[in-house]
């Protein structure tokens, strides 16, 4: 049963931030509620006050600002899926949105909620990690930008303070000739939590070699992780099978998988290997096409 709580309905962002400040640490923001409501029902969280931020205008935009793609934290996964801008400059995120839950959940679930909830399996995170995304954390009268990689602390734990709200997410428009893709393995075709998820970004230079690369994994550690060792291997190299193999092995080493009702640790390790290898092989095929075209 849903426990009792006080629900506050601010009309503006400053009002929301005031409310959070006023009731901290007993208040929590409520966005789409697709994590929070089940958690309340299950007794996993017991806030006295919920501050509804769903639908606040100030959190509902996707646009370009200088060299950045910027979106409000209140953007839904359905919005992400439909955005041409994200399609052009953040395809990896759109791929994650495409396999996120189901259409009903995508209409309600927000990017801010996915980040704020800080599940190790949160599907927007590996894509945003490979895009080197930053988050804007705002509190009454203050705000700061933090790198997404520094945001997560542990399972369901972030550096976001009780008085703070994630208000925006941004990333630099990737250079031309950038490949970015996302894959997740699930136990059914829709409405399923990732057993493992992998995001890869590769940017090619003039020579056809990889000048920049990023690899991120979900559901293989207490928080989603970047695999910098794998990226080191890729940088400056052509994507040969040998390079792909070495990078993949670093990805597997970085994973510290655990077993649960969905999968054993060993199977997660195996899937980390397969998905990483496949995405890099796809990047390699893509890079050949690029080369042929130029």
């Amino acid at each position, binding site marked *: *049963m849903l426990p*009792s709580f006080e629900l506050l309905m601010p009309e503006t962002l400053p009002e929301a931030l005031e409310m959070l400040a006023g009731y901290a640490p007993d208040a929590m923001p409520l966005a789409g509620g697709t994590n929070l409501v089940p958690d309340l029902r299950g007794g996993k969280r017991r806030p006295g006050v919920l501050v509804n931020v769903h639908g606040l205008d100030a959190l509902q935009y996707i646009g370009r600002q200088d060299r950045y793609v910027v979106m409000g934290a209140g953007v839904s996964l359905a919005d992400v899926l439909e955005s041409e801008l994200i399609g052009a400059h953040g395809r990896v995120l759109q791929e994650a949105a495409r396999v996120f839950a*189901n259409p009903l959940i995508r209409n309600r679930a927000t990017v801010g909620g996915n980040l704020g909830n800080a599940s190790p399996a949160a599907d927007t995170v590996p894509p945003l990690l490979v895009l080197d995304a930053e988050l804007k954390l705002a509190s009454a009268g203050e705000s700061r930008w933090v790198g997404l990689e520094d945001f997560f602390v542990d399972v369901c734990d972030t550096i976001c303070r009780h008085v703070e709200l994630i208000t925006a997410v941004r990333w630099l428009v990737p250079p031309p000739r950038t490949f970015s*893709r996302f*894959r997740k*393995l699930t*136990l*059914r*075709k*829709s*409405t*399923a*939590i990732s*057993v493992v998820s992998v995001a890869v970004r590769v940017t090619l230079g003039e020579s056809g070699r990889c000048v920049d690369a990023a690899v991120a994994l979900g559901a293989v550690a207490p928080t989603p992780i970047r695999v910098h060792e794998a990226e080191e291997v890729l940088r400056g190299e052509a994507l040969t099978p040998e390079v792909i193999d070495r990078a993949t092995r670093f990805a597997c080493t970085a994973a510290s998988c655990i077993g649960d*009702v*969905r*999968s*054993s640790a060993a*199977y997660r390790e*195996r*899937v980390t290997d*397969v*998905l990483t290898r*496949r995405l890099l*092989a*796809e990047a390699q095929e893509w890079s050949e096409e690029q080369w042929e075209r130029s």
Partner: protein
Amino acid sequence: MTETVGRPWVRADARAKVTGQAKFPGDFGMADMVHAKILFADRPHARVVSIDTSEAAQVEGVVAIFTAQDVPVNEYGLQTADQPVLCGPGSGKPGADVVRFVGDQVALVVADTRAAAEQARGLMEITYEDLPVVSDPFEALKPGAPQIHPGREASELHPELSTEGNFICHHQIRKGDMEAGWAQADVVVEGQYHTPGQEHAYLQPEAGLAYIDDEGRVAVVVAGQWAWEDQRQIAHALDIPVEEIRVIYPAIGGAFGGREDMSVQIVLALAAYRLQRPVKITWTREESIRGHCKRHPMWFRCKWGATREGELVAAEVQVVADGGAYCYTTNKVLGNTTITCTGPYAFPNAKVDVDGVYTNNPPSGAMRGFGAPQGIFAAEMQMNKLAEALGMDPVALRMRNLLQDEMPTTTGTPLAGGVHLQEVTERCALAAGWERAEEGWRKPAAKGVALAGRPKEAMRTGMGMAVGFKNVGFSFGYQENCWLRIELRGEDDIERAIVTIGTADVGQGAHTVLQQMAAEALQVSMERVSLEASDTGTSPGSSGSASASRTTFMAGNAIREAAALALDGWREGERPAVVEHTYLAPETTPLDPDTGEGFPNFAYGYVAQVVEVVVDVETGELRVRRVVCADDVGKAINPEQVEGQIEGGVVQAMGWVTCENFIAQAGRVLTPHLSTYLIPTIADVPERMETIIVEKPDPRGPWGARGMGEMPFLPLAPALLAAVHDATGVWIDEFPLTPERVLRSLRDGGSLLECDWE
């Protein structure tokens, strides 16, 4: 003239359900009503030493707390009353102080609000003395194993029920001469198989409202499958006459067998009776998954022999079924397993042993197919392996051995009602692309498939087939029957025909079909027929359970016979013309305890399926690309509903084989939510689904109809596993086929089933 039968009438309940107006048990409320919460044991095996309600009773709004000592006759059960209504001391029933699975009910807390009931439930002080837990049926049969129901008595009604150790029941077949059979066999295939449990996952979790009706009866509004039987069991536990209990089924949100045994009925009735006030309860999904039975997990050890030419000569099958903490319908379920585990084939020699075993797992009970899906799985795995061993096409091997009219089954008697196994097999195989060439049947070559983001070399496609059959009705000596009443009103013409019947519409559309059959039998339009159903207050007779694929067959025949009688009366001038009638199905016999000989059933349904899959051999993921299903339904009274049943049955079976993974560890349920117990979504259904409705009439079925609700479930598992074998070359002998299990089996070259058979 057939105007209404055989046409796709829109379901009578469609509009109300689509618009949200249909009322399910959880939607009922009354002024003055109080709310109940059940305290579940939440431990698999323990003695309740004491119950302290004092703190809980202090919570504001608490009206009453009921425990074992408040239950007049603290026992219930469909086949044998082996389950306490409330577990705890003081009821006078020996053994009722023991909880035997996590979903056993210990107390009912009633309060003005749900919140108060829930809060008080949390303050109940129960002192338990934990008992050793046995969760593996093979362990449960060993000497020295913890005993789940010591000192139980033999049942006169059900002699197959055992009193020994943790055996629930035993069935066996001894046919022919096994030695001679093996001597004739050129090829012998041995296999071990495991089929898992399955959660019904009906849309609507258990709920109900009980109150005292205008006539002073305790009325219980609830979802079930056999109102009359619920009524009987409630009356027994409350120790009051049956007439003082009234069971009403409103719209039912699915059942699939999971509502054959009771959940909230008795405690609700008890509370309403004692408090003389309306009492309401609604289970959460978690309570539902922990609180009701599952499909029987089973283990099989099979040895089948055939001649070089592919003639089946001998089958030996041993089955162990985990019955969980209480009997429920285990003896009946395993009767079906006994006759299906050698498949729909003519074996001259057969030896079958089937044991049901008590453990501290959630009870196993009825679920769509009722023991047949498990039996058919083992049989058809054996058959597909035999085809491989013989180098024969699987269709050809079947065509040679399928039962036909007048051929004796393993029980020594032929299948009743016309046998059309060859028809369904042939129609299905041809539709799926098999060729019937000069030299015999030829399977189509597998087509490759390209899927974005997956390397071509990792994608393997395959096609597999299987055949199934199952009885209609419970039978095995039980006299199947169905009561109903028909009242014809009007002057010159029949202006209104009122059909009163106990039969439940559990969501399968039964009431629409009954209305169609009544209109047809009475030769009136659909609009003139009204159905008053599922209320023991208006239907004093038993119309039987909405299960065992029996409803259309039984109620249809009852309608036909009663309509003829009512029309006689009408013609003689009776106004209104009223008939109360009980249809009696043809007699059957139980299986002989030593040989298994007998005539267990009066009707059957037949089905064949071909499944195509694609397997990703690097991740173990699989996708069902196509299912072809040919189902002999005798006569499709409502073709659209038949198609719905076929598609639904296929998807539910696909869930059982692929993603549904019910995990209990040492008796504790680890998947009590639909986020961990994954049923197929619309994205998981087969990419192509072709249904072939075969109409070979059963001479005793109404308008020729056979039962059909369970049949589409039967062959899917073995057909799918055969497709996986076709794709990968590996036989996987157990499921669900989680990607992890598929990958592990590919690595190991098969399943490594380890059971302690001795």
